[in-house]
């Protein structure tokens, strides 16, 4: 009897243990969401390869957040009793992560494709703007600030194009915007400046026609200074005899407004004095009657309008003189010729010879076409 009990005492715990192990092995355990999590991870990985992190940022980060949440819930469930685990939330978040990652992938592909096309167009358009700037204004005096902006803009287009070729659309887009901000206002400014300047063309033409007619009528010499073409044109009997290149004041675009503005005036003048080499520091000089009555009236009106300060003074001593050929607009408003050309001019003109200074002999359309 005693042995029977002994057997019972030994066998019972073993039987209980085996039953327990059997229970542990065969009792249904909730299946972990391995497939769903793997699918979500793969989807996110594919989205990352499609550059969704850059081109569909919000959707991609939503996907990542859902995935992280799924992981947190999974780890939390792992801490629970194996038979009491519930992976429902993990599955939901993994599903959402995969869905958002796929959306991010598609969105990124669409965005990169549309960005590729759009940026290509924008680069093309900017290159056209730059080509127009070069064509129209490469020889037009623009401030060094505008010139620097154009130059910087051109370089940015090249940089943007290199980024675009590498598929770095965000970088390319930033550079395109920067280039646009430099080139477009430069173009608008230069175009407006030139158009505004050429609004005076009818006046210039009228002055030029009068001067040529006067030469024909008096059978004498008349001079026209074409500032845009940088030419002094000498007429005799209404016909062009010869022309010389000239250099002007630094701010030659527009009329002279006040003393010291380094602008060359526009209007109909006459030679009032002739200076030989011993009376001028500019080799030889022909003094003009600037300011004439019209210039003085305009200057006074500008003071009264308040567009010039009361302290402003009207300019004077505008001459056609020698010492030219420096290659830049260096005078304080005078017209500079090379010494040998000054010699030729000096021989044929006299006091009273008409000198008409105009912006251009040609209209804007013609100038742009040239």
């Amino acid at each position, binding site marked *: 009897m005693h042995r029977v009990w*002994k057997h019972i005492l*030994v066998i019972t*715990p*073993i039987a209980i*243990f085996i039953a327990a*192990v059997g229970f*542990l092995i065969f009792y249904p355990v909730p299946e*972990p969401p*391995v497939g769903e*999590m*793997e699918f979500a*991870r793969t989807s*996110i*990985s594919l989205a*990352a*390869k499609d550059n969704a992190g850059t081109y569909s940022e919000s959707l991609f980060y939503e996907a990542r957040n859902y995935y992280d949440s799924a*992981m947190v819930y*999974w*780890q939390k*469930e*792992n801490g629970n009793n*194996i038979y009491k*685990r519930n992976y429902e939330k993990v599955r939901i978040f993994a599903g959402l992560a995969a869905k958002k990652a796929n959306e991010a992938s598609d969105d990124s592909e669409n965005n990169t494709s549309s960005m590729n096309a759009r940026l290509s167009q924008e680069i093309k358009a900017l290159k056209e703007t730059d080509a127009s700037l070069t064509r129209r204004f*490469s*020889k*037009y*005096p*623009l401030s*060094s600030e505008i*010139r*620097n902006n*154009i*130059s*910087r803009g*051109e*370089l*940015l287009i*090249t*940089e943007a194009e*290199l*980024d675009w070729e590498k598929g770095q659309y965000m970088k390319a887009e930033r550079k395109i915007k920067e280039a646009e901000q430099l080139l477009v206002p430069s173009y608008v400014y230069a175009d407006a400046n030139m158009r505004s300047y050429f609004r005076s063309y009818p006046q210039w033409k009228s002055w030029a026609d009068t001067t040529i007619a006067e030469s024909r009528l008096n059978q004498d010499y008349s001079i026209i200074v074409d500032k845009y*073409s*940088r*030419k002094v044109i000498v007429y005799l009997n209404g016909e062009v005899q010869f022309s010389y*290149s000239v*250099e002007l004041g630094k701010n030659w675009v527009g009329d002279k407004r006040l003393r010291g503005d380094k602008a060359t005036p526009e209007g109909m003048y006459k030679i009032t004095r002739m200076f030989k080499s011993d009376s001028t520091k500019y080799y030889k000089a022909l003094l003009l009657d600037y300011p004439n009555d019209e210039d003085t009236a305009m200057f006074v009106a500008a003071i009264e309008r308040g567009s010039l300060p009361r302290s402003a003074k009207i300019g004077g001593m505008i001459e056609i003189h020698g010492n030219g*050929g*420096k*290659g*830049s*607009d260096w005078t304080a408003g005078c017209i500079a010729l090379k010494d040998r050309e000054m010699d030729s001019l000096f021989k044929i003109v006299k006091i009273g010879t008409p000198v008409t200074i105009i912006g251009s002999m040609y209209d804007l359309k013609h100038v742009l076409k040239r």
Partner: protein
Amino acid sequence: MKNKILMGLAAIAMVAVLASCGKKPQVEIDATNAAIAAAQTAEANVYLPAEFAALQDSMNAINNAITVVDGKLFKNYKDVVAKLATTKTLAEQVVANAAVKKDEIKKEAETLLTGIKTVVAENAKLLPKLPRGKEGAAVIEAIKADLGTVDATVAEAQGLFDKGAYMDALNKIKAANEKAGSINTEIKDVLKKARIRF
């Protein structure tokens, strides 16, 4: 009888061992994460973005596998440890590859930078020789502006290069190089037309 008791205890011990022997390979996990961090420090994300992304993806897959094992009654991290070792080796390889790639980019940038400096110096030397006829001043002003921009860009690129941002420097240098080259051609064309020796 004694043997049976011992067998029973052995069985219990075996189950206990099986249930608890799989300890999380924290040392290996930390080592692999450190290797990936080293790859990032080596700027693999900049110079070898695809390889670096693959590395990160491998680690994500391993984290998944670890969580799977974590949830099991009988934990066995053997596969995980093997995967961690592979990824660590891969990360070390990526570090080496990134260094090679970075060096290639550095050399390319360095060569271009030296070349562009020569062109810039030549342009500066040729500029005063340009003929100064009609409208020449505006053209010279435009060229001067271009040269100034190239100078500024080269300085900017040199700054990026000195900081070790070779990839960013390279793009700037390439753009500046193109510009400096076109200025050089423009100046030489004008000089040739004007029959000025240079």
